[in-house]
């Protein structure tokens, strides 16, 4: 059994790394659900003045024809003008890259950002698309039959959990 990284312990270093690249046009968007929790934490740690955006990529997924629409899609809310922004796109786990592709497609339906950087708490390899993260909390290798998920406890603390992939 692989030892999972301590999600809370990764946060300060990741925030410090992001602080170095903040500019006047920086804005953050978290991807539901794990990425939204992570983004809420990072957004607060960095004290960003532009309000946090939250995105659910359910309407942009590439497996709709096979899987159907997921059950409880959240409403994407981007409370700032995307045009010309430097976007920090935040997700919990980077795996195949398909979620990130979908998120970029959705983002461009809101406007044309100046740049997008991908921020993840864990990169587990296994990419199926040419996508990489600019800011990574931890890197680990996991077998294909495992799913790495971020959980949020009742007290707000984040932790990783390993499940059997369906």
């Amino acid at each position, binding site marked *: 059994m692989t030892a999972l990284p301590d999600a809370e312990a990764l946060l300060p270093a990741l925030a410090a790394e992001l602080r170095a690249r903040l500019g006047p046009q920086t804005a953050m968007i978290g991807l539901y659900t794990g990425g939204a929790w992570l983004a809420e934490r990072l957004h607060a740690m960095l004290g960003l003045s532009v309000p946090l955006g939250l995105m659910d990529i359910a*309407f*942009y997924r590439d497996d*709709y024809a*096979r899987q159907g*629409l997921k059950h409880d*899609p959240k*409403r994407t809310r981007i409370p700032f003008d995307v045009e010309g922004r430097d976007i920090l796109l935040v997700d919990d786990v980077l795996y195949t890259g398909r979620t990130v592709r979908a998120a970029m497609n959705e983002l461009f339906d809101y406007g044309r950002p100046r740049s997008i950087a991908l921020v993840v708490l864990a990169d587990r390899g296994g990419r199926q698309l040419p996508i990489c993260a600019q800011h990574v909390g931890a890197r680990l290798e996991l077998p294909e039959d495992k799913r790495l998920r971020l959980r949020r406890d009742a007290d707000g603390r984040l932790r990783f959990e390993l499940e059997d992939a369906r």
Partner: protein
Amino acid sequence: MPANPQLDAQGRLRHLLSIEGLPRETIERILATAESFAGVTERDIKKVPLLRGKSVFNLFFEPSTRTRTTFEIAAKRLSADVINLNIALSSQTKGESLLDTVANLSAMQADIFVVRHASSGAPYLIARHVKPHEHVINAGDGRHAHPTQGLLDLYTIRHYKKDFASLTVAIVGDIAHSRVARSLIHGLNTLGAREVRVIGPQTLIPTGVEALGVRVFHDLRAGLREADVIVMLRLQNERMSGALLPSAQEYFMSYGLTPERLALAKPDAIVMHPGPMNRGVEIDSAVADGPHSVILPQVTFGIAVRMAVMSIVAGGA
């Protein structure tokens, strides 16, 4: 109990034919999904790629502008290709049978049929004969059902009122001929509304309607008292010709919604109408255009609700 023709063996929604028989979770899922689509319809680019490459056939055997248009907008916002067929004017008049018409359209590679028909049950007949990857959405069949209208009514109520368990909903007018009323009553009961009232003259309220779980009122004033939601139904002109009603003026005197009558309902009551409205027949202009009216938001919500229905039925293998 017969199998529900709308659901597949796994309980997934494959066709939307009627609100009657839909599990509460399915209705709630449609409403929650519509809420997310409402966000899409507020953007500059009001389009998502979900149904890219799919074809939606609007089969209207009975004329309709609003419903057909909102289905068309919904399908286009899902990136589907839309083909509108006004069949009242074409094949049917040449004698082609309903199933032959559908078989021909199926050969043109349809994915979703949106069907409006004057005969109750026509969408069921089509749903029984389509291929596994084809889906049927009932856009109004005879006096039977108009499920997307019922769902957008539920969405509107939830938007303004949140909790169904505390609500009194009054539906006013021609209950006997209204597929809108029927669909809404089933939906309100499934979601647990506290009280559903139907109000109208004896000739326009079907006998035994109480079995649907509603309270019947023939006096508008009594029925409106303390209502949270008022749904005015359109009085169809063709009803006027028979013996059912004396005249539009007399109907308005007894059952038209005026500001004075609206004042009997709760102060924050909302007024709904499925359209098209007959001003001065079932509703006074001062009410239709007044602060309680949510008649135009209903139309906007209807697009998001139809996007939700199409993307739920057409998704998955």
